[in-house]
């Protein structure tokens, strides 16, 4: 078993489940459960963090209210990366819009949530290979974003600047 642990790597989940099963078989239920949680905690702390820094006016409040959406968008930005100009422009556009929505003094909390939900969906679609994207849903969502942002004049201006990069990324 020790040799297997040393060689874990990509098979870590499989190995973890094998150890869990073995511990359960020996009646060591709490040890098995502790292993699973400890692995999740350690693996998350080891993972390279997305190198994304937002400029929020009040970061704790932003994360408390929109932590899920911001987390999803960050994961998408990391996945899309910036290896080519198109990806770089897309990532920058998504980040700028996310920041602007969160910092907006013109949007209500509900409008911000709707806008961030839409941006989060756009991010997830960007992670998918083109043939797997839900184009039929994505296009109306992209078209709806400027309408959601229309409550904030600065956001509309920002969309005019960055929206085309997003549309281009998806080939619209």
């Amino acid at each position, binding site marked *: 078993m020790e040799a297997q642990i040393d060689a874990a790597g990509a*098979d870590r*989940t*499989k190995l*973890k*489940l094998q150890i*869990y*099963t073995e511990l*359960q078989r020996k009646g060591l239920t*709490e040890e098995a*459960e*502790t292993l*699973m*949680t*400890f692995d*999740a*905690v*350690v*693996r*998350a*702390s080891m993972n390279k*963090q997305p190198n994304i820094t937002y400029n929020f006016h009040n970061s*704790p409040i932003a*994360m*408390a209210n929109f*932590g*899920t959406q911001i*987390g*999803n968008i960050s*994961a*998408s930005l990391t*996945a899309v990366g910036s290896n080519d100009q198109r990806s770089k422009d897309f990532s920058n556009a998504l980040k700028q819009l996310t920041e602007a929505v969160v910092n907006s003094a013109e949007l209500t909390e509900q409008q911000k949530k709707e806008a961030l939900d839409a941006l989060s969906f756009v991010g*997830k679609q960007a*992670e*998918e290979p083109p043939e*797997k994207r*839900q184009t039929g849903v994505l296009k109306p969502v992209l078209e709806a974003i400027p309408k959601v942002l229309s409550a904030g004049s600065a956001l509309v201006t920002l969309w005019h600047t960055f929206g085309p990069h997003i549309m281009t990324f998806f080939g619209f």
Partner: protein
Amino acid sequence: MLPTNFDTLASDNSDLRPVIARLKEWVERHADWSVLDPRILSKDLRDVDPFLLTVVLRGLVRIGLYRRVYMVETPSGVLADGEYDDPREIPDRVPDRAYHYFNPTETDVVPVYKPVR
């Protein structure tokens, strides 16, 4: 709504009080969340020792405040919809949120903690 009445756990485990206090503070800021995800806690509470965080999460189960369920991480890093009491019950192929099926051992099986209703 995530419960934060961790006082029993804190009074029974004085050595863990600083970790319990950090977790309680985090939960109060995320009261509208439906689960405690150890992956997110680990990232948000970077200064907390991973083993002590694990012990506290297990303690929340022991005092009957939370229960542990298993969920599967999708290739894009979010949790798929299914919940399992035992990781050995997870099927060989599970759907992500876009109904694309994948093998859970190629991603991760994550224990998450839900309030006991």
